[in-house]
Structure formats: C-alpha cells, structure tokens
C-alpha cells in the first residue's frame, strides 16, 4: 500500500514526523494516535501535498516527491472537516470531484449516481449539501473519494460526529471496501472502530510510529488474567480460589474473571474447581485489548 523510509517533517521548530519507517501491505489498516500524533501530516505527505523534510516514501509504488499527481489519481481522501462546496447538490458535488480527478462529463455523472447509491444517499442526491446532517456529510465525502475508483483511500476520522447507526453504516462501508480490494488507511482515535474494521494497525504519537502490526497478533494472551466458565457453587469456588491466592476480579452468570498469583499457575484453578465440587467448562487467558496495547505503547513513549 505504501512505504516510508526515515520520513521526517518539520514545520519550523516543530517536528511533526520523526524518522517514520514503515512498509504497509494492502488491506484495511488503522492509524491510531492521540491529537498531534502526526497522523494528518503523514497522510498529507503521502498524498504529496506536503513535502517531507527528509526521507523517502512511496504510495502504490509511486514516489511521493515526483509523482504526486499520479498518486492522487489513484488515491481517494476523506478529510476530517466538512469540506463541502456550498450551493451544490449531492450529485453536483460528487460529479464535480469526479471531473477534478480527470473523469469525462458522462463518466463522472454516471459514477456520481453509482457511488451515491452505494453510500445510501440516493434519496438526498438532489438536495443542497448544506442541508445534510453529519452522517450524510461523512458519507458524501466518502462518495467523492470513491468517484474515480481509487486503489487506496485515506479516511481521516470518518465516524466523527456520527450517531451509532450512522457509525455502523460507515464502518460496514469501510469493511466492504476492503472486501472489494480497495486498500484503506483509517485514521481515527476511536479504538473500537479501528478494531472492528482493520486487519492491521499503526500506532503513532509525537510524530513517531510506536508500533505496528496485525491486530490479532497485538492482542496477546495475558499471562495472569484468565476467564473461568464454571457450573456449581460459586461461593465455594471463590473460597477455594482465595485459599490458593487467586483473586476474583469480576463475576457474572457463572463466568469469573480471575488473576493468578503468577505465570503458569493454572493448576491452582483446576484444584480449586475440583475442591468446590463444581464443573469447569472453560479456562481462557484474557487477551489484551487494542486499547491496552495502545495505552502501553503511549506509556512506553512517555517513559523514554
């Protein structure tokens, strides 16, 4: 999808990107980071809008310093802000952006209708965009990014300001784009959104890439936190666990969240279950969530 090699960007004294080195394979990738992490600057550099101070990068195997226009012909961008042109209808707006991308009049008009149908704006297509509410504006921006059928789209906070239903719609659209073979770079600070639709994630802070990789690999099994599915006398089990220095963190409907006294001490749980006279249906290590990985990465960066 794109690769960066020692990419740096400075605005005067402020360093927005610090030695960013990445090689991202096609797919749906999340770009996570707090405000000021450098996410938007990275997108701007990859789009060829901002010239990198140092370093090299390529998008879809095109050099960002020499082939900006070619990149923009193959890339779609959904900006964070509204970015609408007042006075235009939904169709007019998407048609216009198609023309800006280099589509002919007929192609642009036909495609505008197609993508507006796709993002579920078919009923509002002839309405002025000023009357659109937040969810419709986000989907309209997605439509303009898709009008020229890009191979890659950059989405900057696409679920901002959307209600839960609109958010679900947007996320399902992003998933479908991934299934259709379009690579997606989803910049967001909403971890559940990224976790739901992305295969991989890049975590940034302070202009640096803190970590990147597959989400399922990042959420490693926790060494001491386990979930127990149990049938029997829970009070007896709790007592047995307490005797073996196993703490019960949560309990609901026969499912207990426990913390073992140390690594490789699962046998203590088995003994406690046997002693309580109940039945063990499952003992699963808890996996660290994306949020925990994210927070750990940020914490590590603060410490260094």
């Amino acid at each position, binding site marked *: 999808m794109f690769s960066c090699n020692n990419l740096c960007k400075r605005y005067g004294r402020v360093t927005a990107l610090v030695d960013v080195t990445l090689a991202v394979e096609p797919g749906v990738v999340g770009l996570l980071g707090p405000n000021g992490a450098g996410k938007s600057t990275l997108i701007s550099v990859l789009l060829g*809008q*901002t010239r990198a101070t140092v370093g090299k990068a390529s998008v879809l195997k095109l050099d960002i310093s020499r082939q900006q226009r070619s990149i923009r*012909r193959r890339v779609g961008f959904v*900006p964070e802000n509204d970015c609408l042109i007042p006075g235009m209808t939904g169709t007019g707006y998407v048609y216009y952006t198609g023309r800006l991308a280099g*589509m*002919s009049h007929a*192609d642009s008009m036909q*495609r505008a209708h197609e993508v507006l149908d796709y993002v579920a704006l078919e009923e509002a297509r002839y309405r002025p965009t000023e009357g659109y509410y937040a969810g419709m504006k986000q989907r309209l921006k997605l439509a303009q990014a898709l009008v020229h059928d890009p191979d890659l789209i950059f989405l900057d906070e696409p679920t901002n300001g959307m209600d839960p*239903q609109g958010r679900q*719609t947007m996320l399902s659209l992003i998933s479908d784009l991934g299934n259709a073979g379009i690579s997606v770079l989803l910049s967001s600070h909403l971890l559940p959104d990224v976790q739901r639709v992305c295969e991989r994630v890049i975590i940034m802070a302070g202009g640096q890439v803190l970590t990147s990789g597959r989400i399922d690999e990042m959420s490693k099994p926790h060494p001491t936190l386990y979930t127990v599915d149990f049938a029997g006398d829970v009070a007896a089990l709790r007592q047995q666990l307490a005797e073996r220095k196993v703490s019960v963190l949560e309990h609901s409907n026969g499912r207990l969240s426990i913390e073992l006294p140390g690594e490789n001490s699962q046998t203590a749980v088995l003994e406690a279950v046997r002693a309580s006279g109940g039945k063990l249906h499952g003992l699963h290590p808890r996996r660290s969530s994306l949020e925990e990985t994210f927070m750990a990465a940020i914490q590590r960066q603060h410490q260094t």
Partner: protein
Amino acid sequence: MTDAPANRVHRYQRWDGELNKNRWTWLAMVVAGVRLALKDRKTRSLVTTITMVVLGACIVLYVLSLLELLAGTEQGKAIAEFVHAFLGVDVSEVSRIAEFRESLWRVFFLLIIKIEMFWVLLIVALVGPRLIASDLKHCALPIYFAKPVTPLTYVTSKWLVVAVFIALVTFIPNLLSLIVGVLITGGLHTWAQTASLGLDLVLSGLSVCLVGGAIVLALSSLSSDHRYVAVAWLAVCLLPVFGQTILNNLLPPESTTGWLGCVSLRDNIMTVTDWLFGMREALESSDLPAEAFTNALLKPVKPICAATVLAAWTLAALVLSYRRVVKFSQTAANV
C-alpha cells in the same frame, strides 16, 4: 429522511473507465464556478441589466446610421435647418458624419466603457470575494488538492471565473453592439472601417479582466469571510478616487498632473483603454472638436505609467494569490 439502515448490505462496484490527463480540469472548475455564481439572484440581475447598455448602444448606433442615411438629402437639410432654427445649434457638419464614423464610434464606445466600469465594480464585488474565501470558510481546499489539481490550475480557474463575469459586462456586450451597429449601418465597408475597433474592445476588456480578476483573487485569498473581501475590493477601487478628488482640490494643478492619475485603478484602466483605442490620434485626425473631447475624455497620465502601475498591481496580486494557494495546498490535509 432517516439515516441509512445499519443492516443494509453494501456492495461496492469497481469502475473500469480511464481518467484523462487533467487537461480540461480548469474548464470544469470554471463552469462550476460560473454556475455557482449565477445561483445568486443579485449576480443574475446585474448581468441581465447590462443588456440595457447594449440596447442603448444599439439605439445610438441606429440613430447615427439614420443620420448618415439622411445626410446630404433634402430631408436631412430640412432637419438641419429645423434644428438650427429652433435650437440654435449648427448641425450642418452632420452631413459629413460618414467621413468620421470610426472616430465617432470610438468616442461612443469609450463612453460606454466608462459606464460599464460601474458594472465591473459591482459584479467583481459580488462574484470575486467568494472565489477562494468560500473554499477557505468551508474547508473545501482538501477536496481540490487531494485530486490531481495543481495550485496553478486552481488559481487560473478561479481567475477565469471572475474574468467570465467581467467579460459578460464589458467586451461581450460591446462586441454585440458593434456587430449590431455594423449590420444596421450596412455592409462590408463599415465592417472594414470598424474591425480594429472590435479588437480594441476585446483588448481593453481583457485588460480589465486581468487586473480586476487578479486583485479580487488576491483579496479573496486573504480572508475566509467574503464580506470583508468585498469591502476591501470596494476600498481598493473607491478610496483612491476620493483621495484623488481631495488632492485635486487641495494641490495646485501643475503639481498633481501626471502622477495623481496613476493613483486610481479606474483611471489607470481608462488611460490604457484610451491608448488602446488610439483616442488622441483619432480625435486629432478627425474634424471633431479635438481639444474639447481630449480634455473631457483623456487623462493627463502617460499610458506607459498607467500600464506599469496596472502591471505591478496585477503581478503582485497574482504572486500573492499563488503563494497563498500553495501554502493552503500544503496544509490541505491538516485544515
């Protein structure tokens, strides 16, 4: 209108067409810009009212052609005697009207252009301020610069939008009037006589487009509020005129001759237009009362000075617009 149902199944369809090389992107931007501007009722009304000027010009040209037809005839002599008897004005020279047709038409169109300057002032104040300011206000720039649009294409297209409107109230109606005048007056001879006038009308109109468009574009790139831009445009056009009037009254005429005419944008444009029209030569070579016309119509500024001032304004404005747009394009994703 409710949001799309979350359980709706989306199936993206790829497009197998080809993108062109963006040679005509500017045209798409100009067409969109003109359409958007014409959605404003005030702009539409202003463009429509210019037809009155065209109509008035056609009527005057028709009267002039009638006078040419009547000149030398018994009817014409009777009319001249009638005018002399009742108004005390000697119009016997009118019998030679066809001889100095070109000069007369040049003077006439110069007067028309002076009137049209008022339309230019208003139309630019209506259309120009929104060009970049509106994109800034609505953060629309990322849409342009995430597509293969260069800052140069953006600036050129925006300038062309305002240029189209200036053309609609300057040389397009003038050319229409000229064509109607030629058709009324009759024949190839008139066409040959006034062909250069047509070219001069286009050139003078283009100079207004270039200067006015560039200045309003630069102002539009400085603010995201089009109202401030409109006020700044009116100030740029009108304040020098007021200043000029005050200085003319305060200072002795000898000390202001020459440089004071260079202060006003309108005067500079008119001086260049006079020069393009060859007014001084036209008046001097004709039997028209040259001195009276010269004092009334021509500014005491050297055309080269006026042209230099206008070129400097235009260049500075274009450089400013371009630099601002380049800056915006580089921060488009961060807007």
